């Protein structure tokens, strides 16, 4: 993995879908009680989630280098995406067709990195 260049990155280097984190084991901390009490809307919660992933990736980049951090970030993201879809979809068929649709949607938009190349460095990087 370390020797790969960015263009050589392959998704199957990093996916491992595990079970979603259990609410009952995490919710009990003071930090979580405070976060739940804030009653954020879903956009705010997504923003907090995205920033948490980015913060972890930055910490990993300092410890293990950019490529390893990116690999771990992708792994985390795919794991959470998989769990979110399994939670929302009723049937496996619906989950699979939603992923197909997602792929079609993703083709229409640039990645954040591609946006960065076009418009300049994003503020949080």
């Amino acid at each position: 993995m370390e020797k790969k260049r960015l263009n050589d990155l392959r998704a199957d280097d990093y996916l491992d879908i595990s079970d979603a984190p259990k609410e009952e084991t995490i919710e009990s901390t003071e930090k979580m009680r405070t976060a739940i009490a804030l009653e954020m809307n879903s956009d705010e919660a997504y923003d907090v989630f995205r920033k948490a992933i980015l913060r972890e990736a930055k910490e990993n980049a300092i410890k293990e280098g950019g490529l390893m951090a990116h690999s771990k970030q992708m792994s985390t993201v795919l794991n959470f995406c998989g769990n979110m879809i399994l939670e929302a979809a009723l049937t496996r068929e619906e989950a699979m067709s939603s992923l197909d649709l997602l792929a079609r949607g993703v083709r229409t938009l640039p990645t954040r990195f591609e946006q960065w190349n076009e418009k300049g460095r994003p503020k949080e990087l």
Partner: protein
Amino acid sequence: MEGDVPEIEKILKLKPAVEEHVEETDRLKKAIELELTPEEAFIILRQRISAKAKEIADGFKNSARAGFEGHRYQMKLTLNFAGNLVLDSAITEKEALEALDLLSKGLRGKKTEYQEWEEEQRRKDGEKKTE
């Protein structure tokens, strides 16, 4: 139940990542200051998506469409967030598409939460009948 599943094509509207659209409210600042781990933040996000979907379903009270509309909204939010997460993290479009392809392979062996719930109900019903 199959007939109640919304057509996916009608529910996805991928919009760009949200931070440009999210107002920096005090509660958002407080939440960011908590420095939640991704697992903790994921639980909050999951709860908020479910709460919003329930709110939508409640709006259709006493209507056969309540569950359908709640589910439709939940799928829409979930897919939008999942799409943005992948676009935020992948470097190239090729990597993003490969990641989604891999995700669909990974999901093939998994059951949805609803399917697990259904199986659990059937198991419980079976136990009651045996008793």
